[in-house]
């Protein structure tokens, strides 16, 4: 098994490493990201945690290449974000980016056409698991169903980096649970790194290998989730409340 893994790495590296080196992003006077440095470990799920306005979405957009840093450097496998790195990244935006006039089937066909790494079988499985109706028009879907469709779009790709911006926000408990299960069951630790932002820590904390608490664009606390539980005898949720009280 060790040998097989090494062979994989020799070819195209299946899992991307993302490095932030003293990154700053300003909007006018506001420093949305303020001199931030960290390395995203390959093959892990990182929980990007913080209240609204902490800089979570900005950080994800920087990785996705949708924002450029005003200071510092970001690299994805050694390269700055570019159209080339975009091919490695599946990004689920917080906003509703789907076309209302399309059906679920049309949406899948439309989005899948952009990507070489689209996995049709997995997409089909996920649609079934999510209970999505292929013939339904997106504009007629409930908020929860739309969130489910968004996660199908993100997890159907074999992308080395998956960025999920608030995938649980504002949706019903059943949909939240489905979304979490889809992430757990589709995550491939040997070739994927996931960053998920949320302020919904209670439900999602068991999902994370690592957590990064973001406060005013800076790291308030970061580390391995299990180690933090062990060292402090507290859940991530409790630490979250302490940090952001």
């Amino acid at each position, binding site marked *: 098994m060790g040998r097989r893994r090494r062979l994989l790495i020799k070819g195209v590296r299946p899992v991307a490493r993302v490095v932030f080196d003293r990154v700053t992003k300003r909007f006018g006077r506001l420093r949305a990201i303020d001199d931030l440095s960290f390395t995203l470990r390959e*093959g*892990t*799920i990182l929980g990007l945690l913080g209240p609204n306005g902490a800089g979570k979405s900005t950080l994800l957009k920087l990785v996705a290449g949708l924002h450029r840093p005003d200071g510092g450097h970001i690299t994805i496998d050694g390269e700055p974000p570019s159209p080339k790195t975009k091919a490695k990244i599946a990004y689920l935006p917080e906003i509703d980016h789907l076309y209302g006039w399309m059906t679920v089937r049309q949406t899948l066909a439309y989005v899948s056409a952009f990507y070489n790494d689209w996995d049709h079988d997995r997409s089909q499985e996920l649609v079934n698991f999510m209970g999505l109706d292929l013939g339904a028009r997106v504009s007629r879907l409930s908020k929860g169903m739309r969130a489910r469709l968004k996660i199908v779009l993100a997890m159907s790709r074999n992308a080395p980096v998956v960025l999920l911006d608030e995938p649980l926000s504002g949706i019903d408990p059943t949909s939240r*649970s489905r979304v*979490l*299960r889809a992430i*757990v*069951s589709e*995550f491939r*630790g040997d070739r994927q790194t996931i960053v998920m932002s949320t302020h919904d820590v209670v439900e999602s*904390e*068991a*999902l*994370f*290998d690592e957590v990064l608490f973001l406060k005013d664009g800076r790291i308030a606390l970061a580390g391995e989730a*299990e*180690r933090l*539980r*062990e060292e402090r*005898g*507290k*859940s*991530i*949720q*409790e630490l979250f409340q302490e940090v952001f009280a």
Partner: protein
Amino acid sequence: MQLRLDQHSPIYQQIIDEFKRAIARGELVPGDRIPSQRELASMVQVNPNTVQRAYREMEQMGITETLRGQGTFIVNDEGLVASIRREMADRALVAFVGEMHALGYGCDEMAEMVRATYRRVIEAGPKDGKAPSSADQGGAPGGEGGF
């Protein structure tokens, strides 16, 4: 298997404890196949890496073994059940004695109270649930035995 994760302690540790408990109670017996890592992760919505760590440690502890292409099984070893059962009992005893000691009870008193409680709770049968003998409660103990 159901997992009640409280998230105040490492989750991989709780997964191991849950398997031990199931073995000690006989809910899992030697030779039983347990869920694959992926199945369990999905079932309890826990990071697959965390489940992997729990499974790796259980294998190192000699609790489980993985047979290629067949899955993960509880090791066929009766001694294992006995030792896990003993370990769980010991943990319960230490917690109990500590708590009772803090309340000011001595050893003989504790032993007597354990006997009395056993008679009341276990021998009276699980149906009545609560203490039927605590006469000082007065009349009928509420609506418990309703019909």
